């Protein structure tokens, strides 16, 4: 069996429309800059957005099983006149808080806390907003014993089944299954300088280049920027940040996010539940890029360069 010729594939990808004004082929430096901004020490974290978007917010604690994972904050707040559930991955601002939050790398208990709060959303018919910012789920022995894999899968299942509207926002660094566990929403949106990737550049460097020092090279290979994720259909919209990045002005960053969230939630609420669930499934069913070989002839690429709806909800 002769492997099909793959040389013509690249050409198709060069035809990507550049909807966001950027080049279809961002420079490696730009990618690295986005990664730096996504991880900026002064970048707003979920609780910073929550404080600005919903002054009345009740944080809920505990997975109702065996603990309270501080890497994930979850609760219910009043947002534009209705109860709204928010779940976020919270990095720490200073050294002490970083340890307390485990650098936003949660164990299974964090996802189980998220699921129990999603159940509350379901009961109260409250929309769910997730704020994603994690280098990945925690790699630890106890996390494995307590079912890190199953917790991530079940979190995806829970989000896939929600009959209430949901929006996932990548606010910082969205890495690996630990990010996707909270990312199965009706709309997935990325802040301008956020990143979304299958693995952190450092992890990829160690595994693919067998060299811990190739993170910048890995970043350039993964191109995990918001603009690229939008092109690939992984993000439905890109929300602008203040000039220079979200860290320069938390209030303005929250205001820009608020614009997207409030408008999109309003639109989503108007969709009948069953339709919304079906559309959500269809959204994730479609994602991917592969070739479909006809019985003979040239390959057809299916996936990322399909026509897509305009940005915004």
């Amino acid at each position, binding site marked *: 069996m002769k492997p099909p010729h793959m040389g013509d594939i690249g050409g198709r990808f060069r035809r990507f429309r550049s909807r966001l004004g950027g080049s279809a082929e961002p420079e490696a430096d730009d990618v690295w800059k986005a990664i730096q901004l996504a991880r900026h020490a002064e970048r707003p974290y979920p609780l910073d957005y929550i404080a600005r978007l919903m002054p009345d917010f009740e944080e809920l604690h505990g997975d109702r099983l065996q603990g309270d994972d501080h890497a994930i904050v979850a609760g219910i707040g009043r947002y534009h006149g209705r109860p709204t559930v928010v779940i976020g991955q919270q990095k720490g601002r200073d050294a002490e808080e970083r340890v307390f939050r485990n650098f936003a790398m949660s164990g299974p208990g964090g996802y189980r806390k998220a699921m129990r709060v999603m159940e509350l959303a379901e009961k109260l018919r409250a929309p769910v907003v997730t704020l994603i910012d994690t280098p990945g789920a925690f790699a*630890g022995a106890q996390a494995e014993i307590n079912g890190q894999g199953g917790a991530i899968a079940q979190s995806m299942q829970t989000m896939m089944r929600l009959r209430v509207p949901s929006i996932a926002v990548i606010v910082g660094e969205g890495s690996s299954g630990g990010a996707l566990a909270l990312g199965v929403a009706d709309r997935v949106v990325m802040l301008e300088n956020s990143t979304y990737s299958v693995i952190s550049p450092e992890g990829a460097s160690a595994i693919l280049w067998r060299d811990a020092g190739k993170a910048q090279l890995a970043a350039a290979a993964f191109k*995990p920027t918001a603009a690229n994720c939008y092109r690939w259909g992984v993000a439905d919209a890109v929300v602008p940040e203040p000039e220079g990045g979200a860290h320069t002005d938390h209030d303005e960053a929250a205001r820009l996010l608020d614009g997207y969230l409030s408008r999109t939630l309003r639109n989503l609420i108007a969709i009948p539940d069953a339709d919304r669930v079906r559309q959500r499934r269809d959204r994730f069913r479609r994602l991917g890029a592969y070739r479909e070989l006809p019985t003979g002839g040239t390959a057809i690429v299916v996936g990322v360069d399909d026509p897509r709806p305009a940005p915004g909800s």
Partner: protein
Amino acid sequence: MARRQIHVSIDRLRGQRDEPAPRPQKLPSDDRACPTCASTFRAEEMRHNLNVCAACGYHWPVGGRERVAQLSDDGAYDELWTELRAADPLRFVDIQPYPRRVEAAEAKGTTEALVCADARIGGRPCVIAVMDFSFLGGSMGSVVGEKFARACERAADRGVPLVTVSASGGARMQEGVLALMQMAKTIVGFEVLRDAGVPVIVVLAHPTTGGVWASFASVGDVTYAEPGALIAFSGPRVIEQTTREKLPEDFGRAESQLSNGHVDAVVDRRELSGRIGRLLGILEQPPPATASLAMSLAQNGTERAARMAQALPSIPRRLRQRVLGGEPPADGGPR
């Protein structure tokens, strides 16, 4: 849809397991030494014993098609969707370009890291989806996700169970975030099976790690694991590096994951086909009694409710009022 009828005759050696195989003569060309007990076997013996060490029970990896044949009655199956092949959406290059890796893997005769097929197990039709670790570490990229979703949809459409065997290092990094998305795609597939009430049996082979364990592999209806299989989101090496813990030898292995509550049974590969066949017999739905079927169609399921609601606008206005409530029409009376 390209299909190929493949017949492979497999002697399962059922009932012969207790008699240890005669010590094989060393044949330098294709013999293999067991890493546990150092017994050596010829390729023919290996194949006959399903790649399990006849002396100590060590389980070697199995290729995707070989596994499908092992599971299927008489080794017969119809492979599905071999026309789906990897693309290179990121034009990804690490120490070599992604297309070169794919070419090399395809050159060995496998088209992707997931083999799907129609087959029968224990006389019962089912859809089988088996990961192939030999194809880029069984990594889950867009083709694996697409085939897996199709396998779920096919099983749901036909009302036959899905049997899936995982063996994977996780998401295919060379497809970037699109590979990550395949995790969610497999979950969509399972949702379709759930709506259809169709069972899914997951077999965890060595290794099942990363994004595969964190998606479909951990949420099967019934979950078997092969002896000694590593089952983990983060492998022991990563954990030891991250936390500087020293982990026990059996960490994350099938037997540990059974006592951790994540697996229903550890099943020897030589028992697997029989065990699954018996289980499919248990799970088979009874033929619905016509009356009770109609009843359940009328009364159950939000799916149907949604369809009914969609049909409503074409129901006469007077009746719609009755069903949906609200003000009676001003011009009451028959339409």
